[in-house]
């Protein structure tokens, strides 16, 4: 007896249309400015803040989030150490995660956050607040250029994050802070 796999593939072979050409996607250039990125991110509930240099990060974090007790970050000595084996009940208490990101996309305010930068896969969504640290030289105009910067693929897990978690499922009223981070700041240096 043939398996579902074999039957499905056979049905596809029998029913598929004549082969068509895979289009080449041209490189659509556009505005890759920090101004554009900041404006779009603000329009989707996030915020850009400037950082004079990476050395100022820790002081800036304490200045911006004075109430945050449990802070996780690979960029400065954290108040809570998180790694891939951290149990769920510890993750659940994180107030703020400060994580480095690799690419910023000006057209939609998204940043690329690969697994290697997350400490734990759940950290970017389980934390109450999220601060992402971006080198201004890593800004690109569109998603085409963003994906072009991932020649090795997306890694085990990775996400584009554009603003804080949100929902409009109750009467189309926008509410920031659905299940993931309640606020999102991109610190640009």
């Amino acid at each position, binding site marked *: 007896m043939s398996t579902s796999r074999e039957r499905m593939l056979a049905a596809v072979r029998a029913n598929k249309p004549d082969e068509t050409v895979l289009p080449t996607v041209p490189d659509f250039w556009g505005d890759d400015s920090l101004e554009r990125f900041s404006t779009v991110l603000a329009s989707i509930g996030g915020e850009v803040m400037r950082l004079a240099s990476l050395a100022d990060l820790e002081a800036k974090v304490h200045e911006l989030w004075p109430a945050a007790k449990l802070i996780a970050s690979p960029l400065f000595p954290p108040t809570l150490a998180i790694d891939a084996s951290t149990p769920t009940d510890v993750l659940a208490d994180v107030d703020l995660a400060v994580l480095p990101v690799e690419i910023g996309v000006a057209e939609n*305010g998204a940043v690329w956050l690969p697994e290697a930068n997350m400490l734990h896969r759940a950290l970017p969504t389980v934390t109450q607040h999220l601060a992402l640290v971006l080198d201004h030289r890593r800004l690109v105009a569109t998603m085409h250029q963003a994906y072009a910067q991932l020649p090795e693929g997306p890694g085990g897990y990775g996400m584009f994050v554009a603003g804080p978690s949100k929902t409009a499922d*109750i009467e189309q009223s926008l509410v920031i802070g659905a*299940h993931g981070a309640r606020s999102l700041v991109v610190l640009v240096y």
Partner: protein
Amino acid sequence: MSYLTHSSRAEAFVLDHDRTSWHDETLWFVRQKRDKAVYAVPEFQELRNLASGIKDHTLSRLDYYLEKFEAAAQANGVRVHWAADAEEHNKIVLDIIRQRGATRVVKSKSMLTEECHLNPFLIEQGIEVIDTDLGERIIQMRDEPPSHIVLPAIHLKKEDVGETFFQHLGTAKGLTDPQQLTEAARQHLRAKFLAGEVALTGVNFAIAETGSVVVCTNEGNADLGASLAPVHVASMGIEKLIPRLSDLGVFTRLLARSATGQPVTTYTSHYTKPMPGREMHIIIVDNGRTKQLGRPDFRASLKCIRCGACMNTCPVYRRSGGHSYDFTVPGPIGSILSPNIDLKKHSTLPFASTLCGSCTDVCPVKIDIHTQLYKWRQIVSEANHLPTAKKIGLRFMGSLLASPTAFKFSGLLGRKALRLLPYGLTHNKTVNAWAIARELPEPPKQSFREWFAKNQPESNA
């Protein structure tokens, strides 16, 4: 077995005038947000062409890409399963859950699992299944199906949600503030996420070259579920494939702009490998899709990326509500997908359209939706699934419009009859369905032919 028609199911919805108007205006507002986002991208039409071309190509080599995807996913340590139909899909999910001895499942939005009726199946087997998308959780508590694929609770008002949360979450009676209601759901669902043993997600895009699946959400519920639970099961139809990672550049630029007018969804998550010591499964589902692939007139419906733009723009959907379609995917796209599944049951859906073509205009992958609606009508008619009144009416109109003499005579008769017959007869709601909510036009004194015969300029010949 006889089925209710779309229009009879819509009757209950349109009884509440205020709510119908609100529904209509709310979805039109989403359409306007879409327009604003789309017009801001100069190359948007070119992106639609590219998306359509990429999907066409993928369907034309789907066997190749399915095998390529499977091999890449397996090399990543992912278990790949194949399900010919809903029953097999549900059984695979149950087996995975049982093998872990798990009972607590958190689920993010997946129209495919709705299509497979996975939730009732698992609940019957003693599994707790929690929908974690806010809109889905609301309708799950109310035991209703989603009425829209992107906005599942769009048929509800905040008062309805307040009452549901009062009953199920113990919020204050009469609480209607969306911010406070969402916060209550956040607390309730956080406990579920933290306790989840198996996470189920849908798939927006499956990348053949890397074996990754991509899930797009605004709430972050797919990521919370899949990153906390030891097991992640992603269910996808065979049509979710795209060849290359770089193709996502095209689709992520189209999806959210078309759906809600956002520049991109908050989270665009790429799942490629399980964490060490954890499991990731992908279930590839047919359930009628290969059959649709074999229908030249209708295979383009498989290009759909489930943005919902055709619903938001459809004058019939906006005024009849998603539940009137009685199919997992409502609106214009559902009306061309559903007859493939059960022609008789869904025979009235291709008629739930004015054929205005607005759905085709907004479709980000350029599916010829209104043309397919028209073509399904022919098939419904040939299969003899038209209601008797419509059948007789169409036969009569067919012969009338084929004969100039009969057409001329009937026009004359109609104009006279409308003038002479009493209002109570011409507007009798039993014989004239048109008059249920509308007036007939004032009959003109003469026909266009008569007017033209009198007024035509002298011929030069």
